[in-house]
């Protein structure tokens, strides 16, 4: 099966003909790719199935590549989403510690919160999607 890919302002667009389409993929490209935009017809196997880093897809001469810098930014956004409920929970625990006058607990919670704030500074050394997804700081709890 073939697909059509072309670059857009948002990244890369992937056109898939309808199963009932009776015109050729070249004709689909002529009709459904914006006029004047360069496109490529590629094997469907060259389009990633994993959409975790969809916003990091870029068109290349050989198909679609995943921009590692964009993928890392996307992965760190997942960290941010994962830490938000933890921070909210710690805020409540901190207030309870303040009400109880437990300064040791306050310091412990403050350190935990700071570790969460610093989590996005964690280095992601690998560049492949699997290597990036393998990095999940312990402070965030179970991987989401």
């Amino acid at each position, binding site marked *: 099966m073939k697909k*059509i890919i072309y670059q*857009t302002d*948002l*990244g890369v*667009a*992937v*056109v*898939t*003909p*309808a*199963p*009932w*389409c009776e*015109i050729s993929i070249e004709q*689909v490209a002529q*009709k*459904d790719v914006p006029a004047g935009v360069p496109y490529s017809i590629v094997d469907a196997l060259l389009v990633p*199935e994993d*959409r975790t880093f*969809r*916003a990091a897809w870029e068109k290349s001469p050989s198909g679609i590549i995943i921009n590692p810098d964009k993928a890392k930014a996307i992965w760190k956004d997942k960290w941010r989403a994962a830490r938000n409920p933890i921070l909210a929970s710690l805020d409540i625990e901190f207030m309870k510690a303040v009400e109880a006058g437990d300064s040791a607990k306050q310091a412990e919670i403050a350190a935990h919160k700071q570790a969460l704030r610093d989590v996005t500074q964690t280095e992601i050394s690998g560049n492949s999607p699997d290597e990036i997804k393998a990095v999940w700081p312990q402070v965030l709890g179970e991987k989401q």
Partner: protein
Amino acid sequence: MPISINGTGTITGISAGGLPDACITADDIASGAVTSAKLASGAVGSSGISDGSITYGKLSTSGTESDNVKKRTAVAFCVANNGGTLQSGGFGFSSVTDGGTGLLQLNFNFTASTNAVAVATNHASGAMGGIERTGLTTGAVTFQSRNSGGNAQDTNISCIVFSE
């Protein structure tokens, strides 16, 4: 009336009732001789219409609201998967363009009218924020699906389009 065979090659004096049953067959009727004006009102019942013979092109586009059948008939339908493919069983689309997370452009295989209507619903089981129709032209309709936090999220959608 007596039957006369005239020198001009015509026969007179024959009445419809004077012919034996079944003596005139379809082969005896000139091609194109039976016009719609010669059919009695109600002569062709639904049983006289071949299965599948009434096509979309034969539906009325009358300017009279109550007579316009095409206005009430969907011109396109599909189920689009979140990965940017169309499931079998739809019609009216040539392709789907996966423009990004939750962003699907459904490309028509016809030219829609400028007052076409396209609606979609999602198949998500989780918390979805909704589907926004971000574009509708004579050639395509575009939907952006989002989660309850307002962020773009992939989902399967069903879409139906009406257009004169």
